């Protein structure tokens, strides 16, 4: 048995270091108190909310309608428009690329202005005009400083009514298009895009190469272009958005003096709806490249379906909320496997998908794919929590005002609002639509859309040969 002194000495030997540890621990804790609590600061931000009043006006002239948002703080005017059912999916099957070529030709002179003079007027007056095509639509825009609006409007009117379509311009336009086609497979990403459309849209018009077909382009004549434009650019198909330094009377006058001059045209024929369902396929495209790129595809939903907002929120949490999405946290932040992984909803007129993309080193592909699949199915099987939903809603509502940053983007947004029949009061109601989505709805959508694996198309990684 130890003497009392010895017990005391032993106790000191144990207790002293213990006290020191505790003291250091307490000191450490106090030294590590924060200068501020970021959560508290963020929580107070609602006190500084400024109301944004946006008025969307419906402008009409005869059978034409446009939406208008007036914005007079900066003297510019933006007009955005589409001709529905006039995109490259509607090109005659022996003239693949005609819509693209025609769109480019519209900038090559109109009325009395030959190509050079036309370009000069645009450039010297700061007027931006452009035309293009998507699969579904033929689109255009006109952006001008207010001071030069009369010149801008006159040019657009001439383009619609008297496109010149001069021969030498057409030749050069075709050559540029063919060069773009020639370069299409340079970058693995664009090679993948071509393959994706072919695979996912199979033998429908959406599978077409957006740039057209070489042999068809080579044969196009100026009378082909003229004939094409007469049937494509008809006011029956128009959807128009306007924003900036103009008022309702001026907006109506634009409809009257420019768009109403177009031929009315015939009622629209759409395409057949594509019912796409993924099967968990994996397709490999061989290419020697440092980073493999993968795109995924699954059944989605249309803008006006009851599933839209619930799916939008589920997808936002899975892969559309930047670096805080579940996929980003898993594959980028935690594993360092990829610089970017995303999922997003795409809607064409006749096809609605959930799409996604990620790039990883070829040797990491199998591991990355497994993670992607796990997160996808976890969403399908378990859905999301109430807390996740609350934060996602706040994120989408608090960023709402950023869409008013750019005048031309407003005009584009007004076109989309009309395309999807969202109504002139959409901007007033949008945050409520988000707020009103219930947890059960989101989880029902999660189960419906994320229970079956998507299809994968990968470039830069080869299928492993089974031994």
């Amino acid at each position, binding site marked *: 048995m130890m003497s009392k002194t010895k017990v005391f000495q032993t106790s000191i030997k144990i207790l002293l270091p213990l006290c020191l540890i505790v003291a250091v621990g307490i000191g450490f804790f106090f030294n590590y108190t*924060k200068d*501020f609590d*970021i959560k508290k600061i963020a929580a107070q*931000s609602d006190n500084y909310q400024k109301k944004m009043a946006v008025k969307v006006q419906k402008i009409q002239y005869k059978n034409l309608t446009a939406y208008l948002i007036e914005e007079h*703080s900066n003297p510019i005017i933006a007009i955005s428009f589409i001709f529905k059912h006039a995109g490259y999916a509607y090109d005659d099957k022996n003239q693949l690329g005609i819509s693209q070529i025609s769109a480019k030709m519209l900038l090559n002179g109109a009325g009395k202005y030959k190509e050079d003079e036309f370009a000069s007027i645009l450039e010297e007056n700061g007027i931006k005009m452009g035309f293009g095509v998507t699969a579904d639509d033929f689109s255009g825009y006109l952006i001008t400083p207010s001071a030069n609006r009369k010149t801008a409007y006159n040019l657009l009117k001439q383009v619609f009514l008297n496109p010149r379509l001069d021969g030498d311009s057409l030749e050069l336009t075709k050559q540029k298009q063919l060069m773009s086609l020639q370069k299409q497979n340079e970058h693995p990403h664009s090679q993948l895009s071509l393959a994706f459309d072919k695979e996912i849209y199979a033998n429908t018009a959406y599978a077409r190469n957006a740039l057209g077909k070489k042999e068809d382009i080579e044969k196009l004549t100026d009378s082909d272009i003229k004939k094409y434009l007469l049937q494509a650019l008809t006011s029956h198909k128009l959807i128009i958005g306007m924003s900036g330094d103009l008022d309702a009377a001026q907006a109506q006058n634009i409809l009257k003096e420019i768009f109403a001059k177009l031929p009315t045209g015939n009622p629209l024929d759409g395409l057949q709806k594509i019912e796409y369902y993924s099967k968990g396929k994996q397709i490999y495209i061989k290419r020697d490249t440092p980073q493999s790129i993968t795109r995924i595809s699954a059944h989605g939903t249309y803008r006006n379906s009851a599933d839209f907002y619930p799916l939008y929120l589920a997808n936002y949490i899975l892969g559309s909320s930047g670096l805080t999405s579940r996929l980003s946290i898993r594959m980028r932040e935690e594993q360092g496997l990829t610089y970017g992984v995303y999922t997003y909803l795409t809607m064409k007129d006749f096809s609605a998908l959930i799409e996604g993309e990620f790039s990883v080193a070829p040797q990491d592909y199998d591991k990355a794919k497994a993670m992607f699949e796990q997160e996808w199915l976890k969403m399908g099987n378990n859905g999301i929590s109430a807390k996740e939903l609350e934060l996602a809603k706040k994120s989408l509502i608090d960023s709402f*005002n950023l869409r008013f940053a750019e005048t031309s983007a407003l005009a584009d947004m007004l076109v989309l609002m009309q395309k999807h029949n969202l109504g002139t009061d959409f901007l007033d109601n949008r945050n409520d639509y988000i707020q009103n989505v219930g947890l059960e709805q989101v989880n029902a959508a999660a189960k419906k859309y994320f229970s079956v694996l998507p299809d994968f198309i990968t470039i830069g990684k080869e299928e492993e040969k089974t031994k």
Partner: protein
Amino acid sequence: MNNLQKCVFCTLFLSLFQTSATAKLFNAEEFFLPNGLQVVIVQNHKAPIVKHMVWYKAGAVDNEAQKAGLAHLLEHLMFRGTKNVRDGEFNLIATQNGIENNAFTSFDVTAYHEFADVKNLETIMALEADRMHNLNFDKQAFLSEQSIVLQERKQAIENNPASKFSERLQKIIWNDSPYALPVSGTQDTIKAITFADITDFYHRYYSPDNAILIISGDVSKKEIKPLINKYYGNISATKVQRKKPSALTQKFEAKLAMSLPDIQSTSLSQTYILPSFHSLKNSGYAYIVLAQYLATGKTSPLYKNLVKDEKVALGVQSQYSYANQSNSLFRLNLIVQNNISPDVAEEKLQQALGKAYAALDENALATAKKKILADLVYERDNPENAAEILGYWLSLGFTLDEVQNYEENIQAVSLDELKDAFNQVFYHSARISGILMPEKKP
């Protein structure tokens, strides 16, 4: 006084009071904090939104060659934890409050930016001011971001078939200068970066006296100056000393010709090395006008000659880039037509330049200026534009006044200055030709 004398007198009198009709580029105000932080506030009240940018005057040229990619990796690690905001929390707070945010690294600067509803301004300031001096990431975060920037390099650069060519061209242009190396680094240099390298760079360069804060949007100086003082005012300056890369002065001619797999067409570029913008004999603005004149748009002399008349190119571009401390660069790029050899294209380019010079007159000068200035109204639209433009120019050493007087400075370029600029570029500068071609079919 007779009538004629009165007339002359009036004209002279009035001309004394002629105020400049040219507007300032932005509605901007500037002040400096005692710790050296340069602050610029730009008002744009079209929507209750704000762009907040912190520009550190430190970038790829400030890290040593063997550690290329360091400044960029630090940029990534700025999101991975501070004394007050734990790893991952920055992104969460940003996303949850609808704050769009990102950052970028360039040769001379690293910029951190947020774009959000103006109600979030205090949150944003707290976050940015905090990571200006309290960065505190751990080893795991370091290893993770090191891996991520390796992936980024592969995805964004190495996957691009032209990158081998453009990086080699960059080396030839810049030689021993730190501008010769890619901002992203290479696989080897990224792997060579250590934890200590990052913290050393951070402490050396991330200081309020080496930074510019730009806030653009639905704010006023009166409103937000107290907030700026509250969050940025107490950060101590470390009196940053930066080594400016030496100017390249040697005249030489070089040519890089490369055939690469996957490349499907031929492109030709010519790069001319000039003194830095501010050290140019005549104003640097003459070179901006020169770039506009030569090949911007379909009516430019080079486009008309090479694309429409001679048919040796399908596209031509001119660019004057002054984003370097030591030099500026003037560049011409051509997409060469199929079946035209690059040598022929180069010859035709020289001839076209001669013709373009001969066509230089007051009218051409006035037209070029008009085109440049017609676009300025658009810069005042989205509040993000002002923050990006001002940050870029101020970090290069321009004063706010000089940037604000952009229109006046462009207008002041004379025909003689423009001709001098042309001669300086095409007769008195180092020239590097770059030719990128498809692989020859056997």
